[in-house]
């Protein structure tokens, strides 16, 4: 059994794979969790892989034809070809607020969903969705027991952080929607996020969970956000701050720093 995880830097795709492989090992399986490392940073699309077997695993290449795909971010399917190589009839588990038919993923596959971002915000207080999606994984696939995952989480984190993550697993276990056939859904072709030729050409709008909304009436033109924005996404027009949403990753520095509270912090919706 081979599983591919799609996430963004900071969502815990690597730790998620470690937790799942630990839990599966508790149940007597042999596992191999393979992260893809590069010059990744928070928000950038990342992948990791998991092999599960009854015997020792020797194959050490990457997973190219997974039996299952887990997507930790609702917008990722629009920028990364998440179903590439997925076997026919394979399962896709997506972090998405709606049901399997509304995720935009189509083809000869089954799609199950869970609103892992909502669960993570309620339990952990941050959009780190790995443990929530694992809870749903246990429910949808039946491959691993929730109790084994909880044990693995205890092993990974002691104290309060472990408790919060276990709560996320339990909540997502209840909230997961069952897998539905999506062979009738037509999927838009996804082009890989290519390397931008010039700095600033790359569209990173799908990286953010929150967007800054500027209130011109309150903006006094102090230029603090303009100076502090690490992505140079904020410009000044007529002495008022204007944001270029294509380049905004949603880091929240402008929102924190604005002296007149002229910026609202609005959650992105799908």
């Amino acid at each position, binding site marked *: 059994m081979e599983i591919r995880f799609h996430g963004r830097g900071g969502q815990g795709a690597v730790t998620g*794979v470690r937790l799942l492989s630990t839990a599966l090992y508790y149940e007597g399986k*042999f596992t191999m969790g*393979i*992260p893809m490392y590069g010059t990744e940073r928070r928000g950038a699309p990342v992948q990791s892989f998991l092999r599960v077997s009854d015997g020792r695993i020797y*194959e*050490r290449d990457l997973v190219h034809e997974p039996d299952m795909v887990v997507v930790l971010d609702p917008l990722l399917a629009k920028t990364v070809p998440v179903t590439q190589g997925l076997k026919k009839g394979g399962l896709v588990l997506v972090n998405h607020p709606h049901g399997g038919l509304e995720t935009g993923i189509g083809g000869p596959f089954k799609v199950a969903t869970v609103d892992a971002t909502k669960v993570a915000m309620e339990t952990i207080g941050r959009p780190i969705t790995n443990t929530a999606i694992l809870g749903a994984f246990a429910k949808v696939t039946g491959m691993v027991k929730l109790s084994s995952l909880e044990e693995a989480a205890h092993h990974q984190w002691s104290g309060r952080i472990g408790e919060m993550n276990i709560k996320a697993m339990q909540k997502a276990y209840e909230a997961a929607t069952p897998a539905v056939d999506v062979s009738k859904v037509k999927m838009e072709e996804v082009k890989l996020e290519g390397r931008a030729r010039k700095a600033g050409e790359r569209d990173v709008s799908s990286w953010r969970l929150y967007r800054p909304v500027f209130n011109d009436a309150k903006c006094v033109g102090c230029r603090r956000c303009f100076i502090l924005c690490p992505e140079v996404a904020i410009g000044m027009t007529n002495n008022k701050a204007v944001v270029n949403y294509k380049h905004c990753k949603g880091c929240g520095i402008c929102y924190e720093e604005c002296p007149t509270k002229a910026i609202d912090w609005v959650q992105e919706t799908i």
Partner: protein
Amino acid sequence: MPQKFEVMVGNKAVAHVVRLARVKFISAFPITPQTTIVQYIADMVADGEIDAEYVNTEGELTAQASAFTAGAAGVRAFTATAGPGLLYMHHPMLATRNNRVPLVMALMHRGIKGMDPDQTDMMAQRETGWMMMECESGQEILDTGLMAYKVAEDERVRLPIIFAGDGYILSYTDEPIDIPDEAKVDAFLPPYKTTIPLLPDQGAESKAYQMRQWSVGRDPQTSFAEDQQAMENAKKVIKEVNAEFKKMFGRGYGNGLVEEYKTKDVDAVIVAAGTIASTARVAIDRLQAEGKNVGLVRLKTFKPFPAEEFQRIGPKVKAMGIIDRNISIGSGGWTYGEIRNAMYEVEERPKTLQFHAGLNGKEVRVQDLIKIGEKTLKAANGSKVSPPVEWV
């Protein structure tokens, strides 16, 4: 499970080697993909799990030099690095061998061209006189690290040793790894004792150390001849230590020098090392399931090169497909050259085919290795194959 296990990455397995071997001096400089080794060791030292002097140096040159001097002064020492860091260690590495300090180094392969793994870093240090062992799994990293101390510190050897794994592929891959019992490891690996006294309280009145250093009063070439002899002795010692490890912990890696996988009555073998050998097992299983008579010889020890093992295997097969994750530009692959060299002593020589795979971190998949196996088999059956050197 009778033993303590944990799902962990190869780099953490290295930290457990340091803990279990009761290393007393650690100096290392972080470099991707070795960085988390340094982090895990620092954690363990801070938590009191490792009772050692832990020195953060300003670079690999000092890391190597201080670990070498600590070893010379009489404590068990450790260092770890990768790729360019290993190159920066070159000069003190020669000094370590020259002074016969049995230092142990963990190496996570990182190429010279980019960040991705290949063995060109280790190849660049081929002539430093360090022993070199290659691993194919996280478990093997832990086991080889413990064996490395025992081999290096053996009276007949007393040479420094590198135990290596492919960076990223092993350093960051999570696998279930058995952690041996501390008491058992203590029984396997007795405390370190230096044989060349350096400090006055070790009885350093004799000028033995200085004499060796400057070859005073004897043939200037003697120390080289002694080191060569020690390297020859190491072949026997590695076999013994591997057998003893297998007896105590139930895990062994071939005979310590090479491991034969499904080579009974085969016409051809592929020769591979490291993680490529691990994936090659899957390829061999599939080839033999189709009735294709190809086996695998896994090279475990690069230095001392086990020429005798290949002289033993050579006459039994008609062709060898030799895979190198390295190249000496102008000469070809490391193992290819060594095996061809060894075959000069053999009357009935097999054909030898050269493959370069996995350089600069290129992924080596099962189907690539199946193709290598098929091509080698074709050569074994007498067909002409081209090109003689293939970049997979």
